[in-house]
């Protein structure tokens, strides 16, 4: 009985949901989109998806081998590999997908420490870099409902995508219902709005995706699109054409909501949604590229730590009973500069060395003393200030702080009791 018992930290009951179930949810939600792509473009769509998975998994395995890490069986590279082909036309070459996957894994993910540490959305950066390198391949779309050749030269009939004609300022010649069903040329995963939205709602119901992220992106985005139409049509028509033609809806559910790079709190997610909506609209309105969403997403990723900080600051005030004065105008203890911080460290070093070599090794001892003395003599003025003035100030101010804090805690307990 004894030997088999293991140690476990405090909460001994855990939620049944794990990272694996979350990732499986996303993969399940992506499958119907691939089925629709198969319906419109034939087996080449499925092969593109499989090759995406293969490239991403192989690249991350290579990365793990190079970094001498254990090869883990997490599903995040597979999702990146599944999302990237859906943003591209079905005629795209396999090497473009390989390049996008390589950028996603080798540039975005691995240098920052692998899963959970990337700064930007890997799929978005992979797609963006591919779009910059091969715009002719990434932005030329085949007409739907034709079976493409699996390998070899592309002989499919090409067509103008609604996003392109919108960029030129022309009204697209497709009906809105066709755009909802996806039988218009465009990225192979993002055109069938009905299926994408259903899969997104599935993810929101499963709580794998927080509902705030897509809603706070799509509402301001559609509002902006309705207010500033690019074509000569009614604002509702313009809104429908604009909203259903890009990758915005697909991205809102599957890329914007990626947990690693989006803010952690609800209010932060809300702010991030609005930021990316404004950025995506500006890219669409002033930019020449059709798919500005990926770049908007990257911009949002840059700001997401800032949104977290803002949330933390607000909560910092709220935890003190909502009194701004106490938080911002109270006297703060003098912040230690870098040089001042060094001083105690030197002393500790000196002590340690003295302990290690008490009397036997006199030479080392003297060396240590010399070293420490040198370092101290470099900044003699600061030491004096640290000893005589700043410590007293700090202690007085700390006392003041404590006096100020005590009533706030009392108020808090009262509030809790009242609640």
């Amino acid at each position, binding site marked *: *009985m*004894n030997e*088999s*018992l*293991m*140690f*476990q*930290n*405090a*909460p*001994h*009951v*855990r*939620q049944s*949901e*794990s*990272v694996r*179930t*979350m990732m499986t949810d996303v993969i399940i939600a992506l499958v119907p989109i691939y089925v629709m792509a198969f319906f419109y473009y034939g087996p080449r769509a499925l092969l593109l998806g499989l090759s995406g998975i293969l490239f991403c998994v192989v690249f991350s395995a290579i990365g793990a081998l190079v970094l001498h890490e254990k090869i*883990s069986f*997490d599903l*995040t590279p597979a999702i990146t590999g599944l999302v990237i082909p859906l943003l591209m036309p079905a005629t795209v070459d396999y090497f473009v997908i390989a390049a996008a996957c390589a950028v996603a894994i080798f540039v975005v993910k691995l240098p920052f420490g*692998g*899963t*959970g*540490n990337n700064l930007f959305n890997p799929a978005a950066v992979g797609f963006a870099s591919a779009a910059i390198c091969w715009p002719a391949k990434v932005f030329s779309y085949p007409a739907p409902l034709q079976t493409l050749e699996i390998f070899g030269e592309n002989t499919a009939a090409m067509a103008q995508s609604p996003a392109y004609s919108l960029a030129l300022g022309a009204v697209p010649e497709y009906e809105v219902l066709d755009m909802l069903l996806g039988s218009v040329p465009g990225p192979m995963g993002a055109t069938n709005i009905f299926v994408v939205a259903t899969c997104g709602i599935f993810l929101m119901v499963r709580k794998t995706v*927080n509902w*705030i992220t897509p809603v706070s992106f799509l509402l301001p985005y559609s509002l902006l699109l309705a207010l500033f139409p690019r074509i000569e049509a009614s604002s509702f028509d313009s809104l429908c054409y604009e909203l259903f033609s890009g990758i915005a809806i697909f991205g809102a559910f599957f890329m914007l909501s990626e*947990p*690693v*790079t989006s*803010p*952690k*709190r*609800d*209010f932060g997610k809300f702010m991030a949604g609005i930021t990316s909506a404004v950025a995506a609209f500006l890219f669409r309105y002033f930019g020449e590229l059709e798919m500005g969403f990926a770049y908007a997403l990257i911009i949002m990723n840059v700001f997401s730590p800032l949104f*977290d900080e803002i*949330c*933390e600051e607000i*909560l*910092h005030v*709220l*935890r003190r009973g909502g009194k701004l004065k106490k938080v911002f105008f109270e006297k703060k203890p003098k912040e230690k500069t870098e040089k001042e911080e060094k001083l*105690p460290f030197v002393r500790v070093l000196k002590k340690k060395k003295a302990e290690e070599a008490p009397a036997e090794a006199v030479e080392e001892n003297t060396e240590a003393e010399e070293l420490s003395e040198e370092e101290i003599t470099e900044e003699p003025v600061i030491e004096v200030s640290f000893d005589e003035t700043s410590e007293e100030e700090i202690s007085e101010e700390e006392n003041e702080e404590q006096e100020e804090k005590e009533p706030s805690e009392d108020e808090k307990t*009262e509030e*809790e*009791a*009242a*609640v």
Partner: protein
Amino acid sequence: MSFFVRGIILEQKKEPMLTRSTLVMRHEYEYFDCDFPDIALDELSREQIIELARLAEIVDESDGKLLCEKLEKTDLGEGGTLIIDAVDDEPYISSQMSGCIHHPEKVALGIELCEKVLSPEKTYVAMYKHIFDTNFSIPKKIGNYKVEKIGGRYPAEGRVYRHIPKGKNAVVVGACAMLHLARAAEDSRKMTSCFITVAGDAILNPRNVEVPVGTSVERIIQLCGLNEKPEVIIMGGSMTGRSIFEPENEVVGPTTRGIIALSRGYHNPSPCIGCGRCDHACPKALSVSTMRKLAEFGDFEKLTRYDAALCIGCGACSYVCPSRIDVAATIIKAKKQMELAKKEGTL
């Protein structure tokens, strides 16, 4: 709206233990001699009741203090409230609730005696009501005393104070201590036993047991039987208890709420994916995900800025973590180190 909701919904898993009768381990009861054996229960004076609690050596299971000291030193003042704590908000644990439910008369008698000492204006029994996986309904009254149902999400222990009038004092006393006080008054019996929930998927016959104080954990597990070989044995609550290695050397005390044997522990945490669920779960609205990173790097100055001292150690963040990371344990450990550093003056 998740903007305002804090805490977590827990699957309570109380069912077989709560409705089954309490299993009493056979042991010899100890009795005490008192100077006033013939006085009727109604005529006991304040000092006599405190003397009874002292002679019976009753320990309050909600905080581990001696009941006689608690009764003697508490001065509720005008309009004070006496709260009987039967809030078992942790999964599996139902020792206090079952004490109330299966011995309502005795608990009511204990409360009556307690009321005589403290003379509060209002008295209520606090019970946790969000137990969805059972048909059992919480009684409206224990004896003549009202049961206030404490609702809401997991860390509900702090919410027992929500029914007291504003600006008045309140004291919390455990329900099982009341039971023991009644026994002491009726039969002059010493408190030699404690109520413990034995549960978990490795236990054959999960139920509430009454065992002598100082029984070893292994003996109690033998009493209820083992289904399969357990991998983890926990002493205390399922959310805040500690895992033990030597069940034959660990003994139970009055404050032990439960013993839980699980056939499988949690292995192999995966890296944090930053989903922010821990931030939402925190009942104190702390930025848990950032705090965990700071705690791992040992940046104590920033941790003070993030209000690490407010952490109550409820373990809600670890419960929701999909990566199975020991978030709460990391932060609590850093908090202890911070306190040490403050004492030494290095922070």
